[in-house]
């Protein structure tokens, strides 16, 4: 009986052959960066700096996970960063109106989830291209944020929010822990639940999924809903980090979320995805920016560096196919 049980597991050779080589590009690049920056600047590998890198990557990790769910179904959520902005502004407005921080957080997350719901309904039920729909909600959500906030940042001075980014366990702040829990949960959902298999099936072959009874519309709705919900969580982390709710457009978060997904080896055509890949991708981008700053490279060069890394990663994954 045990022999049968072990025979069920893939052998090492098969595992190696089936190894997702494109997905190993990001960990390799991260290692390289750590070695190079560590050698170039002795402060890079201090616990204080590692704490800063983790802290800086928490929001991006959550957004990259959100983007991964949508991309796995061969879609894209261009609205993810402005949805976060809207969530943050709603949080700030509700808090400044005198409600408790709990209610403010709930309202912010609910607002972002609602945007996800709208995306899902229009893309899945209306059958309109995701690119167009989420481009529309990108604009609508950031416009709404500007209107609600009247264009001004709203300070959110709450002990809970302060603790979220400033305290924690050792070098792991609560924000980082939230991001880690999001990543682990997402991994379980993607690989250990029915929804996970179904969304990879929809991304891989919509037709095959439909013929086998997978409810495509429901799956598509779910991923945009998840994306909105996670953008809401990211909004909480953002407000905690900044100490205020700003209606600023967070375009770099959008670009970096897609970049992290690409770096993580997730296929933009859908059907193939991991969570660990984009998470490492997000860490890579945060380390890159952090290292360049330590080395005194002007901020103006950072987007350029990020762009080069992403294009290189894209080449690498193509080369390995």
């Amino acid at each position, binding site marked *: 009986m045990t022999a049968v049980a072990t025979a069920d597991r893939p052998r090492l050779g098969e595992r190696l052959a089936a190894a997702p080589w494109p997905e190993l590009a990001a960990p390799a690049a991260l290692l390289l960066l750590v070695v190079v920056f560590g050698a170039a600047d002795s402060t890079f590998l201090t616990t204080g700096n590692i704490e800063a890198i983790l802290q800086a990557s928490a929001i991006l990790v959550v957004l990259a996970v959100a983007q991964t769910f949508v991309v796995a179904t061969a879609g894209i959520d261009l609205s993810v960063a402005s949805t976060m902005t809207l969530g943050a502004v709603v949080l700030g407005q509700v808090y400044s109106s005198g409600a408790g921080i709990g209610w403010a957080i709930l309202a912010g997350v609910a607002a972002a989830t609602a945007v996800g719901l709208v995306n899902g309904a229009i893309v899945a039920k209306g059958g309109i291209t995701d690119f167009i729909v989420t481009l529309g909600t990108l604009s609508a959500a950031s416009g709404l944020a500007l209107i609600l906030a009247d264009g001004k940042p709203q300070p959110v001075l709450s002990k809970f929010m302060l603790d979220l980014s400033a305290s924690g366990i050792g070098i792991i702040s609560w924000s980082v822990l939230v991001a880690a829990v999001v990543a682990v949960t997402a991994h379980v959902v993607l690989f250990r639940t029915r929804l*996970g*298999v179904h969304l990879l099936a929809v991304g891989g072959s919509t037709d095959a999924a439909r013929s*086998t009874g997978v409810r495509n519309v429901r799956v598509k709705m779910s991923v945009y809903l998840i994306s909105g919900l996670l953008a809401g969580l990211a909004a909480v982390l953002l407000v905690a980090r900044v100490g205020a709710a700003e209606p600023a457009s967070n375009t770099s978060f959008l670009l970096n979320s897609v970049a992290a997904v690409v770096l993580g080896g997730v296929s933009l055509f859908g059907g193939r995805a991991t969570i660990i890949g984009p998470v490492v991708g997000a860490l890579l981008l945060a380390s890159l920016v952090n290292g360049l700053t330590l080395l005194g490279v002007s901020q103006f060069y950072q987007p350029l560096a990020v762009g080069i890394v992403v294009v290189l990663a894209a080449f690498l994954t193509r080369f390995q196919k």
Partner: protein
Amino acid sequence: MTTITGSRLPTAKEQDDVLVVDGLRKSFGSVHAVKEASIRLPRGKVTALIGDNGAGKSTLIRCLCGVHKPDGGTVELDGQPVSFHSPTQARDAGIETVHQNLALVDDLTVWQNLFLGREKTRGFGPVQLLDRRGMRSQAKEMVSALAINVPSVTSRVRRLSGGQRQAVSIARAAGWGSKIVIMDEPTAALGVQETARVEDLIRGLRDSGMTILLISHNFDQIMRIADGVWAMRAGKSVGYRNVADTTGQELVGLVTGAIPA
């Protein structure tokens, strides 16, 4: 008591039909894909469905397996009228399909494809996790029960050959104690040896008691493995022949319209 004459299909009284389709219609906008299809499937037999490209064969079977909803007509399964709103309902009722495009997801593994749409889960209440180990070992049984040569149930479908993919799709249709297995051109893309293997699979399924509806353009194949044949022409079912009493030429005549019906 009527006597069975020539190659006509025995009447309903004389024969045990699993599935009876009467006057089924389906249009896509202005395209009348199926205008009037009435066919019956005798239990435990291989029945072929023939017709030229575009005759409406795939559309007819997609109505039977819950992918399309027919515009009119009736379908009776074991004497009970049925109407399926989804593939899942048809599968639950015992109608499985091997689609023309196989309906496999390349990036998923063999076992994931075998269980697609009806994954086994374990857990409490709303928290349900996939029973991966259970599904893997059951998938191995499904594959070995049909003596299919697939490298491993954990390999991705993308890495399989055409024949292996076909076999996986058939194993998925056959592995659930189904009553009826519908196959849409299962050997169209296969070589001689792989075709022979799939034909063996089909005979095996019939011998285990399943009813098969086989769409094929290959009349030699139909003569080899089918018991009866329905012909379709321009969206209409135009006649039935017993394989034992017909010839390839007669079938060609039915399909082209040279023989009225």
